[in-house]
């Protein structure tokens, strides 16, 4: 009888455990407040790349100034630093610096930060990285051997933009830029950053 009782209790313990697991399983610990994200498409990233391309082309052309702390007035406004080591010149934003651009068409602020080095010689080449922030939009980009003419306008080289799960490659020509994501390509209007 004692052994029978042991078997009954053991079976009961097993049945209770199964019942408890079946009733509750594993409780979720997801937050109770929604936290949704915008789902981006390749075309979305192409448009974002256009903004970065226009903004950085304007910033590169502002690199002709020689102050240690440089102020930019238009179309982006703000301050950044310049450090000339005799061979290369580094241009970068400090932690509390950013260049603000308010596209006339949008009316909402876009902030650009960067750390770019111009190599000596002719033509000059820009390499470095940066980021764009606007609302919940946060994009990073890298400059890869972007060659500049005498006015520091980009005429060759590449910017790689990372946004969401996409990587866009922007290639400069003289007065032109194209963005490619996978096999799709778009043309960037260098007067305002619009994409078609």
């Amino acid at each position: 009888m004692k052994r029978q009782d042991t078997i009954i209790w053991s079976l009961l313990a097993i049945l209770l455990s199964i019942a408890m697991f079946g009733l509750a399983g594993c409780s979720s610990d997801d937050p109770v407040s929604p936290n949704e994200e915008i789902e981006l498409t390749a075309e979305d990233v192409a448009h974002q790349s256009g903004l970065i391309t226009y903004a950085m082309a304007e910033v590169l052309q502002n690199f002709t100034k020689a102050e240690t702390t440089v102020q930019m007035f238009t179309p982006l406004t703000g301050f950044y630093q310049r450090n000339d080591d005799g061979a290369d010149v580094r241009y970068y934003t400090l932690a509390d610096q950013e260049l603000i651009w308010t596209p006339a068409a949008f009316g909402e602020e876009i902030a650009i930060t960067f750390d770019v080095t111009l190599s000596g010689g002719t033509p000059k080449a820009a390499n470095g990285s940066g980021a764009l922030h606007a609302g919940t939009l946060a994009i990073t980009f890298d400059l890869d051997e972007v060659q500049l003419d005498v006015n520091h306008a980009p005429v060759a080289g590449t910017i790689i933009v990372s946004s969401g799960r996409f990587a866009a490659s922007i290639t400069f020509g003289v007065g032109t830029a194209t963005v490619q994501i996978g096999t799709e390509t778009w043309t960037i209007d260098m007067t305002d950053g619009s994409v078609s």
Partner: protein
Amino acid sequence: MKNWRTGGLLIAALLLTMAAGAVAQTEESTDELSDLLQDVGEDYARGYLSPLISGFGINQNSGLYHTARIPYDGLKISFAIKGMSSNLSDADKRFRTVSTVDLSDYVDPGDPGYGEEGQLVFEGPTVFGAEGETGTMTAYWHGIPVFQENAIESLVDFDYIPMITPEASVGGFFGLRGTIRWMPDYDAPDVGTIKYKGLGLSWTPNILMPTLPVDVAIGMFKQSLDIGELLESTASSVYLAVSKEFSVLTVYGGVAKESSSMKVHYTFDDNGDDVPIDFELAGVQEKRTTLGATLSLGLKLNIEVNKGNMTNYTGGLIFGF
């Protein structure tokens, strides 16, 4: 024993008075909540109120038992006051929702995005979010913000959602226990009538198997809490509980499937036009695990922790079984 009963009833009356004070505080907060909500539409309100809706339900579905032992040797009556607190994580205190919209409603003709689809993002502090921060409504075109408007602040910066409830139980026959949670209807000025009631039934299979090494109970509970015309919440739970007595200490645990929902009614001020808003939102939590202990010293003191989407702590003062 007579002195214990008299003392217990006096303590219960004192705690009910404190609960009424908590209700009066609720009345003032509800008025402020109506004032905040009138500046936002339904889509924003759904995200903003989400921790309130889930938290109310989680609190109501807490403290449903303090032992799995149900006597079956004659009539037993008990009274209790239960206090609950559901903890809010940082992620619970903010929200972000995304919906697809026609950007023509947010940008001017000729601007990028006019006539195209884009995303409308509502984000910011929830009703229990950080103070000093205002939510926003932002329209995005290709992920680029093209329009933004301020929304509303939080009502109160809380890290937890509290609740207190009295209850009475009757049992002792056929292994059954019936429990009622109830407070008298309270007419709050500017808010309306506050109503709270709940009914539960549990049964122990120990009556069929008295030699079980532990006490087992299965039960269900259904509750409703209405605050004026603004909020109507319901909560229900089905649970399985197990407990073991060790002298004056009872250790118990359980699992439950539960649900909760809240109907929200308010008036949205849409640029001078009063738009009635009515919607119902379900609480997020569907399951929980409970672990608790009860100390029997004439009267009983219990404390439990409930794990689910929120961590809930519940304590109780029980007079009777």
